[in-house]
């Protein structure tokens, strides 16, 4: 049967990764991957995907952020139950970290397939740009801030970023990297208002305020891969972005460690979250489609697919048992942290409801855009968001 798959992977590296999935699926024979890419980002695509599922015209499979995005849909019984195949193939045994897999569970049943691990706490830097600015490549956030003015003098954008979720990503990264793992968990997992009001959190906001100074005004309306290409071309020196940025570096033929480098946890606290992309399979009336869905699900977690896909996407595989010989320097750094598990935290998507998550995003992007907003004001609002979070 034709299996329509919706996702928002339209940037270069992402599209290449999607192609891997499509081709592998088509190769299995019998069924066909019908690509339903929706350009923009999750914010454009999610409403369309959700409304289609609600509207009773579900696609065969769809990308959704693991976490609570899909929870209500699962609750309403709109998603295919994958428990059977998951048990049969023993997914629980090889998917790591297990928290990632937990996100797919609802009342003990499995409803989604995680396809990769995305880690977000990265600062991508272009050494050549720092050299051109007459400063050494920074080792951590503080050094980077110090280098800012010199870079600006040379007309190099210190920090390339884009609107909305991209600046929010910077903020959340800072909570774990500047504030540390403890703070991150207290605030986001425990919804601890006291922690949110703490001096540590204030430091996070202060760092975030510094980031605001280091970005160029052109960030408005810029997409993340445009920002990445600014770093690639040396027009900007750094970008704080998830590991998917590596896909772009890869497409541009750049080599990690030489052409570009990465600061895990902004060089401060090497904490990684384990978010990622996951696929859901909305319930379908056609049994052929259901069969195809299960086939796709099983294929997605297979070793072969995992390697090829994650290399293209720049993310980490969900299996601990795959060979990562082909992985680059930065990926290896990530795998190291992941293997230790100490410094792994759940992703914000898993901890916060979409509502709270986007409240935080609203605050962080407003703060980023409005230089006159003080750290105190922002923190006060942050506290009230955390207080009301559910």
């Amino acid at each position: 049967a034709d299996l329509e798959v919706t996702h928002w992977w339209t940037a270069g590296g992402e599209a290449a990764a999607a192609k891997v999935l499509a081709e592998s699926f088509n190769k299995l024979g019998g069924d066909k991957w019908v690509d339903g890419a929706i350009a923009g980002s999750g914010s454009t695509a999610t409403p369309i995907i959700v409304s289609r599922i609600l509207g009773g015209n579900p696609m065969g499979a769809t990308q959704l952020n693991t976490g609570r995005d899909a929870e209500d849909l699962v609750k309403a019984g709109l998603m295919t139950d994958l428990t059977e195949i998951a048990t049969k193939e023993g997914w629980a045994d090889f998917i790591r970290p297990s928290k990632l897999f937990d996100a797919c569970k609802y009342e003990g049943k499995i409803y989604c397939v995680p396809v990769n691990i995305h880690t977000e706490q990265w600062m991508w830097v272009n050494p050549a740009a720092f050299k051109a600015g007459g400063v050494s490549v920074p080792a951590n956030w503080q050094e980077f801030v110090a280098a800012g003015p010199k870079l600006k003098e040379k007309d190099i954008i210190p920090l390339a970023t884009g609107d909305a979720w991209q600046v929010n990503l910077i903020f959340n990264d800072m909570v774990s990297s500047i504030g540390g793992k403890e703070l991150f968990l207290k605030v986001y997992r425990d919804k601890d208002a006291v922690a949110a009001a703490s001096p540590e959190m204030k430091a996070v906001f202060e760092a975030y305020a510094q980031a605001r100074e280091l970005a160029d005004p052109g960030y408005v309306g810029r997409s993340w891969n445009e920002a990445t290409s600014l770093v690639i071309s040396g027009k900007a020196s750094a970008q704080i972005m998830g590991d998917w940025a590596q896909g772009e570096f890869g497409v541009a033929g750049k080599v990690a460690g030489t052409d570009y480098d990465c600061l895990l946890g902004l060089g401060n606290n090497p904490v990684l979250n384990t978010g990622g992309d996951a696929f859901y399979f909305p319930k379908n009336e056609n049994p052929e489609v259901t069969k195809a869905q299960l086939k796709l699900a099983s294929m997605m977690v297979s070793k072969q697919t995992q390697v090829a896909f994650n290399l293209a996407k720049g993310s980490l595989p969900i299996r601990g048992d795959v060979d990562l010989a082909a992985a680059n320097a930065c990926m290896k750094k990530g795998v190291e942290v992941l293997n230790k598990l100490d410094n792994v935290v759940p992703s914000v998507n898993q901890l916060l409801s979409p509502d709270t998550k986007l409240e935080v995003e609203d605050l962080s992007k407003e703060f980023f855009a409005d230089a006159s907003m003080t750290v105190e004001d922002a923190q006060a609002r942050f506290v009230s968001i955390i207080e009301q979070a559910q």
Partner: protein
Amino acid sequence: MSHAARPNTLFKNLNAKVAAVPMIATVLIVFIGCTLWTVVLSFTSSRSLPELTFVGFDQYTRLFNTPRWNVSAINLGIFGVFTLVFSTVIGFILAALMDQKIRFEGAFRTVFLYPYALSFIVTGLVWQWILTPTFGIQRVVRDLGFETFTFSILNDQRFAIYAVVIAGLWHGTGLVMALMLAGLRGIDEDIWKASRVDGIPIWKTYLFIVIPMMRPVFITTIVLVSTGIVRVYDLVVALTGGGPGNASEVPAKYVYEFMFRRANLGQGLAASTIMLTTVLIIIIPWALMEYRGGKRK
């Protein structure tokens, strides 16, 4: 009209009633039904899916305590006032100029009207290109040698909403011009002659005689423009995406986002209800005016 039906027979005007079934269904199911549904569920804690857990005015309390909503509402006000004032004024001036027996009237009319044919998405994209500082007007002027020239309203959260106004005016003023032109052409030419004979300067004639006479046209225009203002969405999405920060957010976007993306239907519907109420507040005075107007005719 004297052929109003006797009300008591169901089968009188049967054909008319049958023909009006689609309209009646639309009205009852879509407009009334959906509105009621919206209002009722705005008092619940519905998340992704509608559920009937009533929480009183909680959603409204939260709504009015959300900075983003307040910014959206203020933005809608700013956008609304500026769009209304400028599109009416500019539209009228253009129409008045076009009415001066000029040559190339058709060409000018086409030029002023064509943006209306383009979608807000296209409008937003084009103006984004033009207003982007790294690329558009600012860069062009700087390249001309004015190194310090700054025109970056798109990236300044104080002015981003005015970028939306500029693009919106570009899109919609042509229609206003067309309406005004039609209105001007409907004015008895003798009025012009009379005011000439009275020795009244042209601008005074416009101000004190023609504009008051065009009241119905102005009302139509204002109503039309207002409907567009309340539902402004695509333009913001394409032009600023609501940014920088939340600086150019608008209510329609708030509603849409809460319904489908934040999985907080209750909150989205509370915002919808407020929007619907606003619309009613706009319409009712107009409807009353029209009613009286109808009697006067």
